[in-house]
């Protein structure tokens, strides 16, 4: 118990060091530019903590969180699902079209839309699993390629002759809007924000809890982690590695399918290839790295990321390029990886010392010396 606590503290320490390092680098760049780092930070903090900013941060973080968990499922097994981006966009598009086309009672419709999205995401990731298991294709390559194919497929399906509709906004093409009985209302979590938090933030919490339970408390999760650490060792101890690859990618894809849901069901109610948010899958990779593939860590990472995105908006108003935040985000991901590695090594060395100390015979040099000689 004490050991776990100290490891947790070490990890938190590493994250804080990394964040401080990133802030330092950013400050240096700002100073070189001739801007005051303290002014920038105070501006960002002031704007980032207004109620309407908090609302945006929470909503962005919800979506980032789902994306990062989808990535983390793969990472835990050493699988790099770079294809979350294509999976969620295709899933959102088809689920939106499905939601606009069917008529199901309120409550059932939302669940059906979400299930369709999970199914589409899982199928798109399933192709990757199939290629990897049967043909040995690296999932890094196939997921990246499938992102492009998803873009092409969406463009094709969004033609007005297939699933696209000319929308009320003159220059947009969307799917048929999902009626009220298929939408998910928002929650009034932040007073005076002038808007509501995505109702599906609840879904993100559930996904986080499930992720923790499945990975840490089930046999499947144990096999997953074991395979991730050494596929050959896992195979030797009776794990069917191919089955694990398929299952993990399907789960990762299903989770990726959820990424588009909060905005689709809570805000836009239709998929538009012009205005629907893209690139979340790549943000998810960075956040999963930052959060160490841990459900709680990812939650903090998602909020930090969303905070930086949102609070940077104020900088333009003061003539400071908001792109400075992208530097912060990049540095924080890199430095967190380095910091964790340093902490891990230090912890390992520390553990060796402790174990070595515990196993060492009572300090009786007379007894120890002959033993060493005979060994």
């Amino acid at each position, binding site marked *: 118990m004490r050991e776990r606590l100290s490891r947790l503290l070490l990890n938190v320490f590493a994250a804080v060091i990394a964040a401080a390092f990133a802030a330092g680098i950013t400050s240096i760049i700002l100073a070189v530019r001739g801007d005051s780092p303290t002014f920038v930070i105070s501006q960002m903090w002031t704007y980032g903590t207004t109620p309407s900013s908090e609302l945006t941060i929470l909503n962005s973080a919800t979506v980032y969180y789902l994306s990062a968990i989808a990535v983390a499922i793969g990472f835990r097994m050493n699988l790099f699902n770079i294809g979350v981006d294509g999976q969620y966009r295709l899933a959102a598009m088809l689920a939106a079209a499905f939601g606009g086309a069917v008529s199901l009672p309120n409550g059932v419709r939302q669940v059906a839309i979400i299930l369709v999205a999970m199914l589409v995401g899982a199928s798109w990731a399933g192709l990757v699993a199939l290629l990897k298991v049967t043909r040995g294709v690296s999932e890094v390559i196939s997921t990246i390629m499938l992102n492009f194919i998803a*873009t092409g497929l969406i463009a094709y399906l969004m033609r007005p002759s297939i699933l696209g509709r000319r929308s009320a906004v003159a220059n947009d093409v969307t799917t048929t809007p999902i009626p009220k009985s298929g939408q998910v209302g928002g929650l009034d979590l932040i007073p005076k924000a002038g808007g509501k938090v995505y109702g599906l933030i609840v879904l993100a919490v559930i996904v986080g809890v499930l992720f923790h339970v499945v990975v840490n408390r089930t046999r499947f999760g144990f096999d997953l982690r074991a395979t991730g650490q050494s596929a050959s060792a896992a195979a030797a101890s009776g794990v069917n590695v191919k089955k694990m690859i398929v299952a993990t990618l399907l789960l990762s894809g299903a989770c990726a399918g959820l990424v588009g849901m909060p905005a689709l069901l809570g805000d*836009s109610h239709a998929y538009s290839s012009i205005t629907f948010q893209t690139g979340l899958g790549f943000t998810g990779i960075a956040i999963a790295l930052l959060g160490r593939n841990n459900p709680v860590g990812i939650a903090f990472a998602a909020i930090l990321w969303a905070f930086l995105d949102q609070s940077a908006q104020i900088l333009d108003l003061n003539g400071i390029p908001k792109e400075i935040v992208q530097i912060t985000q990049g540095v924080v991901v890199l430095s967190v990886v380095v910091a964790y590695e340093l902490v891990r090594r230090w912890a390992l060395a520390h553990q060796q010392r402790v174990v070595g100390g515990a196993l060492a015979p009572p300090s009786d040099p007379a007894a120890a010396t002959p033993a060493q000689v005979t060994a």
Partner: protein
Amino acid sequence: MMNLRSKRTRIAVAGLAVLAMTLSACSSSKNNSSGGGGGGTGSTPAKKTVKVGLAYDVGGRGDKSFNDLAAAGLEKAKADLNIQTKELSAVQGESDQQKADRLTLLATAGYNPIVAIGFAYAGSLAKVAPKFPNIHFGIIDDNSSKLPNVEGLVFAENESSFLVGVAAAQATKKKNVGFIGGVQTPLIQKFQAGYAAGVKAVDPSIKVQVAYISQAPDFSGFNDPAKAKVIAEGMYDGGADVVYHAAGGSGSGLFQAAAAKKALAIGVDSDQYQTATADQKPYILTSALKGVDTAVDNFIKDDAAGKFKAGSVRFDLKAGGVGYATSNPIIDPYKAKIEDFKAKIIAGTITVPTTP
């Protein structure tokens, strides 16, 4: 470094503004008579002070395309008014809520009027505008809003494209012309439809080759000169001798290909003959002009003069909001026929299609 760059862009934009002013002199004459609040009464030296907020689409100032044209309009308005501006731009892959926050930021900082550049802001504007009933909003390329404080500024891109189509049909010797669209969206298809109709109006037997650089949701087509160049080369090799682009920043690729193949090209939005390199200039037949600069300029001046009108304004040939460029003399022999068609469109005897 940053400062240097922004200074350079500012110079470029200022140049563009001057250029656009001289070009659209004929087109803005009509609008000036109705909306030249400050300019008309020219004798009074005191300029009115306005705080104008501009929310650009992705790319912002310096994109050498759509956003820059809006910036040029802002610069034009500065000639008559004392303007304090704040210009914010969108980032790739942001959510609707982030767009809404940007508009809110401008509104709460006291900017009035606020112009949203690009219909991507339509959804967020619909959410933000009702919260600030005393602030006037303008939005380019969208007329869906029914709110009392929003004015949509839309353009008849199909009509200007029709005219350059007429030019292309006359200039082609091989009876084969091309169209390169940036991203296949309804807006760009409007250019295609007008162009093809213009070509066919002159000679139905002329072949029109059509290609798009990318498909929505992939927006790289607006900023991919290399691909535009390959497509253009393919069209020229395939028999075309005039190619028109509606591809924003990708257009430079077409001009490179045209210069290399010694074939003709047609520019879009601004008069691209003016901004092309010396070796490309002879090959730029004309450009389909889209008066985003005029629209932004008029919107700001009208608002300052208390003439804000909710609803939407359509900038078409009749209003002088769109047109074609005549700065390259090689267009001269074709002008008579173009003017002929222009008169027919204005008179309403020809209706130009908006979808291919």
